[in-house]
């Protein structure tokens, strides 16, 4: 039977090639994801290893790990440096000052966007820097800039650059040098850098304190790294810690691993979607191919082949196909992963050397998934084929439709069970929030599976109805009938598209609803019409000079304007979000907050206000005392709770008097609210506020819509990411539709021949196939949109208590998905329609 399987495959090369594209795609994504993850890791590890190369031990601030979370740079005090330098076994120490700052380019914008510019002290030896032009900075007003900074900012030797940190005002520096890095690179990892004198770097980064970010310690001859670390440990003091260079690198590598893992998981997700969708495709192809071979199988059975042999021969075919396709997929994936690494490394890391790593798991996983999925998908059609009695198959060869009752009934039961679980979860009847949410989620999943099973049943009325759109001519009518001819086949083909569209529609609906809810809330509750703020996503929080507030208040039609400072402070031992403002009552009023207890009078220096749930969390009430230490603060302050706010996302947090701003991490305001007079021209006021902000590159005036857009910008990223997934599912869907149509066209060769013989034109034949294709694709998309909207609605309802109380339909996106489905249908129809039009009439009607 194996030989028969091989011969059968050779005879159906084209069909199998199409099927294998899906398998190749799935395997390739998996291999690429794993190769990319490993390669980026290797590349970044190499880059990391360059840092402090040659040093034996590194002294860092004691809380280096939590640094990135609260954004506060703790320094190593100068005394520690002195102590290290005088320790036995130390040859010399290179002290680094390094932290993110803001610098303004020649276009008036902040250089670097998401990734900020790094300030360093020239001569730190953290990296090998090579001066290309000019000289090193010698006075505090001079800087050298990296070649990448020069390119990005448009500023060069002899020009001045404006830079400032979270604590300093905008300052101008003369650029006296431009430098690159070892290996002729313009940047490390694509970042921009400015080198200051040590004193100036300390003014920017440590507010003028004589402190350092890292001490790179070089051992004297004969002293090992471990001995050095042991010798340094007792002298550096409690605020610092020491590690060997190896351990430091291992830690850096582990940090990178977190990031690369995220990228890798994202790609793996793509691979899994491709694989999941291809299961349908492969199963469908095998079903159709087997349907066309029922006579042959029946003949084999009649001459004595056993059921097992039939199954085995089909599985052998699947195994062979799966192996070939998975192998090709693995190869494509490895090549793609390597190429992608090079592309990413070159554009994001500006790395001179790309290390491609191909972990064996990449190839094994790709092969296992590709082969496994193919064999699994072929199993059901194979077993079904073996169950057909020989006589039946011979008789019913032309009529391959099997009843779909069982499928429909089980689908309905599953969908109903899912709906029930969702209903119970949504109405909070499952006992407990977690149970309710889990119930809703599981229910949503069941509904999805159930509807997928119901597609065959739904295809009858829906395909008919959708097809009506095209029924204005006869060819279209025939196409529509063909689409509805084999519900199972149509359903499975459309499912590939349905899955993708459901996914994006549900996500887009939920995110749009969240956005609409926030907007709705803003429109109702927030009194301020304009916000002065920067991008929500940035490594360095946007801030501005408080002096501009007077200019803003002076604008006609501005009733009030209040600036806000933020910090994350330690309050009674926990990290808390603290605001301060010159006008506590004003901020509460403009943000639409309300007081539960106390009044909105200015807070005294020893008073603090807080929202209800934050107070409850710490177990404090009116009149209680709390202790707070701010980011840059060296001592704790005691406050009395003087007001309690009703919970409200906009005003949640702690409020103190402005006296402590100098102890905040960012000593400048990060946001301002502007109340515009009723009836005033908002656009004119916006322009006037922007004028006042002309010298503040990081912030701008935003109206509600823009502000909400900024706050919810992450959702846009999420929607784009999900849409990429849809794109992939669509590619597989196109292949699926092509496959089904080609097989159907081949199956209907005689019919097509007859139609052409009795006078159907080539054009009509093409139209007929196109209508069938578009109808199938649209059917999948419409189902996907319907299920997606349903799930989105359910999720929105489940989250209604958390503030997502508006249901919004992403109409433009949905229209886009439907249009994309039509496009999928048209694309998929090209080859099958051409094939159908070329049908050789004589060949088709020649008798067997």
């Amino acid at each position: 039977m194996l030989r028969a399987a091989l011969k059968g495959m050779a005879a159906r090369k084209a069909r199998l090639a199409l099927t294998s594209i899906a398998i190749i795609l799935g395997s390739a994504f998996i291999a690429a994801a794993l190769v990319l993850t490993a390669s980026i890791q290797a590349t970044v590890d190499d880059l990391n290893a360059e840092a402090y190369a040659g040093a034996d031990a590194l002294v860092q601030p004691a809380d280096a790990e939590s640094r990135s979370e609260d954004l506060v740079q703790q320094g190593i005090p100068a005394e520690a440096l002195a102590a290290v330098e005088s320790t036995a076994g130390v040859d010399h120490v290179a002290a680094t000052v390094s932290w993110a700052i803001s610098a303004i380019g020649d276009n008036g914008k902040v250089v670097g966007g998401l990734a900020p510019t790094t300030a360093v002290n020239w001569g730190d030896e953290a990296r090998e820097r090579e001066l290309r032009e000019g000289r090193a900075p010698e006075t505090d007003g001079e800087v050298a800039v990296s070649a990448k900074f020069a390119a990005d900012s448009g500023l060069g030797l002899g020009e001045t650059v404006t830079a400032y940190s979270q604590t300093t005002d905008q300052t101008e520096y003369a650029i006296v040098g431009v430098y690159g890095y070892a290996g002729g690179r313009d940047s490390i990892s694509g970042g921009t850098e400015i080198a200051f004198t040590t004193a100036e770097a300390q003014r920017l980064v440590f507010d003028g304190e004589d402190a350092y970010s890292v001490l790179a310690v070089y051992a004297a001859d004969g002293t090992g790294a471990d001995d050095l670390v042991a010798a340094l440990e007792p002298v550096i003091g409690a605020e610092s810690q020491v590690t060997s260079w190896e351990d430091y690198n291992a830690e850096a590598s582990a940090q990178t691993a977190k990031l690369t893992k995220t990228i890798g998981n994202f790609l793996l997700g793509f691979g899994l979607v491709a694989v999941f969708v291809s299961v349908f495709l492969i199963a469908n192809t095998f079903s159709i191919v087997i349907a066309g071979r029922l006579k042959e199988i029946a003949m084999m059975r009649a001459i004595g082949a056993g059921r097992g042999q039939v199954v085995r021969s089909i599985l052998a075919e699947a195994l062979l196909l799966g192996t070939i396709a998975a192998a090709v997929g693995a190869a494509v994936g490895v090549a793609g992963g390597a190429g992608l690494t090079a592309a990413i490394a070159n554009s994001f890391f500006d790395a001179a050397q790309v290390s491609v790593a191909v972990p064996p798991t990449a190839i094994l996983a790709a092969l296992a998934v590709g082969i496994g999925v193919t064999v699994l998908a072929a199993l059901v059609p194979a077993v079904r084929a073996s169950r057909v009695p020989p006589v039946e198959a011979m008789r019913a060869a032309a009529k391959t439709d099997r009843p779909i009752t069982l499928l429909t009934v089980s689908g309905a039961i599953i969908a109903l069970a899912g709906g029930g679980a969702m209903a119970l979860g949504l109405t909070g009847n499952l006992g407990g929030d977690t149970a309710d949410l889990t119930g809703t989620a599981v229910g949503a999943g069941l509904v999805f599976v159930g509807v997928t099973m119901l597609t065959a049943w739904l295809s009858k009325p829906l395909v008919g109805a959708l097809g009506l759109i095209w029924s204005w001519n006869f060819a279209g009518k025939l196409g529509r009938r063909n689409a509805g001819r084999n519900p199972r086949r149509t359903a499975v083909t459309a499912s590939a598209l349905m899955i993708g569209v459901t996914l994006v529609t549900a996500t887009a609906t939920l995110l749009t609803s969240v956005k609409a809810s926030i907007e709705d809330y803003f429109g109702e509750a927030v009194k301020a019409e304009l916000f002065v703020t920067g991008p929500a996503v940035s490594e360095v929080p946007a801030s501005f000079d408080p002096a501009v507030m007077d200019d803003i208040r002076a604008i006609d039609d501005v009733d009030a304007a209040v600036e806000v400072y933020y910090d994350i402070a330690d309050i009674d031992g926990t990290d808390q979000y603290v605001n301060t403002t010159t006008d506590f009552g004003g901020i509460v009023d403009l943000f639409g907050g309300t007081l539960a207890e106390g009044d909105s009078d200015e807070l005294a220096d020893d008073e603090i206000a807080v929202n209800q749930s934050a107070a409850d969390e710490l177990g404090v009430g009116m009149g209680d005392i709390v202790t707070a230490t701010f980011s840059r603060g060296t001592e704790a302050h005691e406050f009395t709770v003087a007001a309690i706010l009703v919970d409200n996302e906009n005003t949640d947090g702690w409020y103190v008097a402005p006296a402590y701003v100098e102890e905040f991490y960012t000593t400048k305001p990060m946001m301002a609210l502007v109340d515009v007079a009723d009836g005033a021209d908002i656009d004119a006021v916006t322009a006037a506020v922007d004028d006042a902000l002309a010298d503040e590159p990081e912030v701008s005036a935003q109206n509600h819509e823009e502000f909400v857009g900024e706050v919810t910008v992450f959702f846009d990223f999420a929607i784009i990411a999900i849409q990429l997934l849809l794109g992939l599912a669509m590619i597989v869907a196109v292949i699926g539709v092509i496959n089904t149509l080609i097989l159907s066209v081949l199956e209907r060769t005689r019919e097509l021949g007859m139609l052409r013989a009795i006078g159907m034109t080539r054009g009509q034949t093409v139209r007929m196939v196109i209508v069938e294709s578009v109808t199938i694709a649209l059917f999948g998309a419409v189902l996907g949109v319907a299920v997606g909207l349903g799930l989105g609605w359910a999720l929105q309802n489940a989250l209604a208590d958390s503030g997502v109380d508006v249901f919004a339909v992403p109409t433009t996106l949905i229209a886009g998905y439907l249009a994309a489905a039509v496009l999928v249908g048209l694309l998929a129809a090209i080859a099958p329609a051409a094939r159908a039009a070329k049908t050789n009439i004589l060949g088709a009607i020649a008798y067997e």
Partner: protein
Amino acid sequence: MSTASPVRTTAVSAEGLWKAYGMGEAQVVALRDVSVEFASGAFTAIMGPSGSGKSTLMHCLAGLDTTDRGTVHIGDTAVTGLGDKALTKLRRDKIGFIFQQFNLLPTLTAEENITLPAAIAGAKADPAWINQIIKTLDLADRLSHKPTELSGGQQQRVACARALASRPEVVFADEPTGNLDTRSGAEVLRFLRTSVDDFGQTIVMVTHDPSAAAYADRVVFLADGQIVEDMAEPTADKVIDKMKHFEELVAAAQGEHA
């Protein structure tokens, strides 16, 4: 047994048709210099041994296949040299087909299958005419059925109705009774006969069955790509008798061009 129309014109004519398949050694000459005319309003059967070129001749006459040499006319239209578009239109408007099997579209009802050529042409079938055919074929109570719900004989009757629905110049039938039992076959043949007698339809039918040929007005015998006999007023006995001499006829024909 014929004469429905008083003035006989020619519905289909072929002049010096040659048709060969393949090249060189493997070349098979399917038609050798065939010239034949089919009068309108006549029922002609084409007979001959397997491989003698019956289907090839019919395909050439119907514009389904090209000829190497010679000309074909359907009515006044010269078929030879027409492009695909014109041929398609010709088949749609002037020719009806009945095949041995797989004649109907499974997605359409019997009635829709009958009016299929008109639908393809974007025209409306003449309802009175369609009704008359349906009545003659006794299909009135089967119109809303799909082909899978019809017996083989009923299916072939629907195919007959479809072939006649557009009042074509000529109906070509390639072994229309080949897949049917004797009774169903006889029903189909009786209808073909009726359509010639009552409606003046021209029919050219390829068959292996002498009793089927007996329904025709005339039988043309093909052997090895040549017309070897043209018999008027055939009966089953006369045809069987002729067929018994086929061995000689074939031998004679081969002798001629050897």
